[in-house]
């Protein structure tokens, strides 16, 4: 018995130039916010951008983007609707605001299904918002999306970096491209994260300060791009991503 979906996935991703998985291993460090604002910023610069929220049991990018009442189109597959200039795919189209308790194998199956049937078309960037943990999502992206590059988000906390360190070591051991590390919600001026990152031979993208205006900007993308959070990320994107 052969699963016919797997060979189709690379075909579906064929016309995508770069895939960036915004990841960490640790939860609550700002992956979803970084992924959303990264995608929005690239779209604003004129790139064709897809955005895929793979945190199926606790999706949050739809809240950040202020999205509701949209559905993909069925056309030789599933065509993601365009939201704020992004081709946006999320499990919420199917689960709505219900809890979707999924075991790892079920998560994996759902991810494979969506990768196999989603018609992204031609994209400059596909941004993937990853769930926390070093588990099915990470392993499946590594296994199924060979061209994925990882952008790693951490906070300044030792608790976050304990996991992030393991996550990065895994990527390096597998020779997977690590685009860089972002230190988010910075409140003090320790350079612990920068040092640890550079010691591993990885680009330190910089710091995003803890932004008091962030919470009230959630759901309003124009504001998100214009507060400190959005501005800091925009600067990093300009400096660190090779956008030729």
């Amino acid at each position, binding site marked *: 018995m052969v699963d016919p979906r797997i*060979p*189709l996935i690379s075909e579906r991703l064929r016309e995508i130039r770069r895939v960036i998985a915004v990841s960490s291993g640790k939860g609550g460090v700002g992956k979803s916010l970084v992924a959303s604002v990264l995608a929005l910023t690239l779209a604003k610069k004129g790139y064709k951008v897809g955005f895929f929220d793979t945190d199926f049991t606790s999706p949050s990018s739809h809240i950040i983007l202020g999205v509701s009442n949209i559905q993909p189109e069925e056309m*030789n*597959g599933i065509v993601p609707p365009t939201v704020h200039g992004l081709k946006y795919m999320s499990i919420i189209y199917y689960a709505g605001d219900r809890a*979707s308790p999924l075991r790892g194998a079920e998560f994996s199956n759902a991810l494979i*299904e969506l990768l196999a049937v989603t018609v992204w078309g031609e994209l400059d960037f596909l941004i993937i918002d990853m769930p926390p943990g070093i588990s099915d999502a990470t392993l499946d992206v590594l296994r199924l999306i060979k061209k994925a590059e990882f952008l790693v988000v951490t906070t300044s906390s030792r608790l976050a970096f304990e996991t992030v360190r393991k996550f990065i070591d895994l990527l390096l051991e597998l020779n997977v491209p690590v685009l860089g590390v972002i230190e988010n919600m910075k409140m003090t001026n320790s350079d612990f994260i920068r040092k640890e990152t550079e010691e591993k031979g990885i680009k330190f993208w910089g710091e995003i300060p803890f932004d008091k205006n962030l919470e009230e900007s959630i759901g309003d993308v124009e504001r998100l791009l214009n507060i400190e959070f959005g501005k800091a990320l925009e600067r990093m994107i300009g400096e660190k991503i090779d956008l030729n």
Partner: protein
Amino acid sequence: MHEWALAEAVIKTASQIAEKEGLDNVSEVNIRLGELQQVDIEIFKFALSQLKAPKLEKAQFNIRRDEAKLRCRVCSYEWTFSSVELDEEAREAVHFVPEIAHAFMKCPQCGSPDFEVVSGRGVWIESVKGVKRHG
């Protein structure tokens, strides 16, 4: 109709299997179609016939329906998908992502969403048969 995407997956994979096994001409492709996904079999068949790849021109597609059976991981109760009443929205969601069943269904005995799809989840290729390449 995302039935076309599922058909595309079958065609592409059957072609790859034919290639790998050195089949010049595929005579049959045996497909198992899980009930859970509620695939429209007429559209699916039509898509298969339209998408035919070079080596699959004369292939016959045999489609076997696979009953969807569920088993609770908490209390071991087993039931069938056809015994469950689901509204249109839920059916459509499960059609696209069968795992979404966990958001809409519960074990009829203990109420848990922690059940296993024992059979009848999605689309599978059982076998690809044909004439071996000569030479």
